[in-house]
């Protein structure tokens, strides 16, 4: 299970809304506690896909390396990668699966008309042939309510 804390969640949404109508991507940093991945920080990464970024994203490995070092210095881990699907649902596409790295989990944010619509989290299998949904927790939009569960 992955649980995204409010500060990180709001940073991810803000990044995805800002980048609309292009896909945005970033790294999720945090800690593992009792089998739960707790995301404490979201680090926006540049989408370096060499073409239209409306439906594709690519992470620059050199930038990911810098983030990995940053996580190390904070005593945190890179737990996963998030990216947005502008005007598409939150699903793990074949493109997402085939270009993934099985070491991480992947949060997909659906952004419709520039606003957040839904989210999901997936974990690809080791051969990148299929993926499994991973339960995802993120804070509700109104700060009054504490945490709502989505899967």
């Amino acid at each position, binding site marked *: 299970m992955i649980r995204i804390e409010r500060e990180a969640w709001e940073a991810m949404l803000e990044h995805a809304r800002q980048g609309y109508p292009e896909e945005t991507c970033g790294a999720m940093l945090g800690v593992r506690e009792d089998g739960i991945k707790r995301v404490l920080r979201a680090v926006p990464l540049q989408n370096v896909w060499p073409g239209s970024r409306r439906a594709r994203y690519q992470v620059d490995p050199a930038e990911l390396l810098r983030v990995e070092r940053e996580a190390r210095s904070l005593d945190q881990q890179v737990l996963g990668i998030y990216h947005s699907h502008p005007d598409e649902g939150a699903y793990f596409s074949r493109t997402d699966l085939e*270009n993934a790295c099985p070491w991480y989990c992947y949060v997909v944010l659906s952004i419709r008309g520039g606003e957040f619509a839904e989210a999901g989290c997936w974990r690809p299998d080791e051969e990148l042939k299929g993926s499994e949904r991973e339960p995802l927790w993120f804070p509700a939009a109104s700060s009054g309510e504490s945490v709502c569960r989505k899967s």
Partner: protein
Amino acid sequence: MPKILIPSALRQYAEQQAEVELQGATVGELLEELAAKYPELRRHLFTAEGKLRSFVNIYVNEEDIRYLQREQTAVTAADTISIVPSIAGGAAVAETAAGLSREEILRYSRHLIMPEVAMEGQLKLKQARVLVVGAGGLGSPLALYLAAAGVGRLGLVDYDVVDLTNLQRQILYATPDVGRKKLEVAIERLRTLNPEIQVEGYETALTSENALEILRDYDIVVDGTDNFPTRYLVNDACVLLGKPNVYGSIFRFEGQATVFAMPGGPCYRCLYPEPPPPGLVPSCAEGGVLGILPGLIGLIQATETVKLILGTGRPLVGRLVLYDALAMRFRELKLRRDPNCPVCGDRPTIRALIDYEQFCGVRRERGMQEADDRDLEPRELEALMARGERFLLLDVREPHEHRICSIPGARLIPLKELPQRLHELDSAERIIVHCRSGQRSAKAVKLLREAGFRHVQNLKGGILAWSDQVDPSVPKY
């Protein structure tokens, strides 16, 4: 001992270690040691055949080993090796791709039967958008083959008119096209070759004002230009927009090609931080070019473009291919991204397009040439000859050019021999210098004046202007 940093996601397979020191002389040896020490790590890093998995990148300090010697890259005790995955994806490209029509399936059948291309690759080609800057020697074969291969949207930037001297190498054009706009002819030709694709023309010079706007709509930019200001412009625009710049250049019997501005790879400025002084490197119009040469270099660029689109093979990134037609030899130079590069470095100082003519010193040079009112018009030279005045007409071209055509009475001393042969000339005599277009003779005039010759003049426009204005029987070349 060299140190290997374990990415956080893999530490659970490495007894929670964040870094490990191991013995080994190359990256390959170190990784093998690592997998031997932590057997659970092996399947995460290597395939069953023992190759690094496709998504695994290895860095030695700040450099990707793909741009070094791969697994054979040597390491020392001071080096840090990092393991970084490649990650990409996207909503829907593969799923929503339009299929191919029956005609397209026939047209591309030789691609479709190759597993490396197949339907998936052909659809990638169809969805690709490639901009070719310059529809000349390099642009001609490039555009023809990319159109034939089925690149779905091709953009061409050129504002020139077809000239008879173009036909020796610019195979987009034929003899009846002389005098027509290049773009008009090119678009017609490419649409006839492949009506399934879209061809867009931009009849303009690429400038700092329009470059980002034009490039923005394309995935890959191919540089088929012939001058330094545009090359720097294309490079900087590609780096700023994060688009690959497939580069080629040609001169006489030699050519170069590489792919710039890929993530982690070098850009044109990493190779050439400064432009050459204006006039030092002659253009093809001045120095000539073997007509076949742009065909070969242009097709290296086309090949790399298609590979980038298909995502197959080893891209020409971090490697500069040098081709020598006379020796029929290819050589390869390694290129590295310069961390101090002003445009693609770690702390870039160029964040917007600049004035590239000024950067390359082109405008100043033109101004200087125009300012000299001691130059002689072809008509004035004709009048001097008619009056029987005494002067020396000096031709500073090469002997093989002199044999194509010459002005009667001219004495030949090629520009490069001039410094050693000054003693053959009389410094008191009036000397009128000419070449083909007036550029080399301007250099000769400068050299002679500095050597103390007082009555030296340049023939404006060279023998080309002489042919236009005085004697049309003199052929132009």
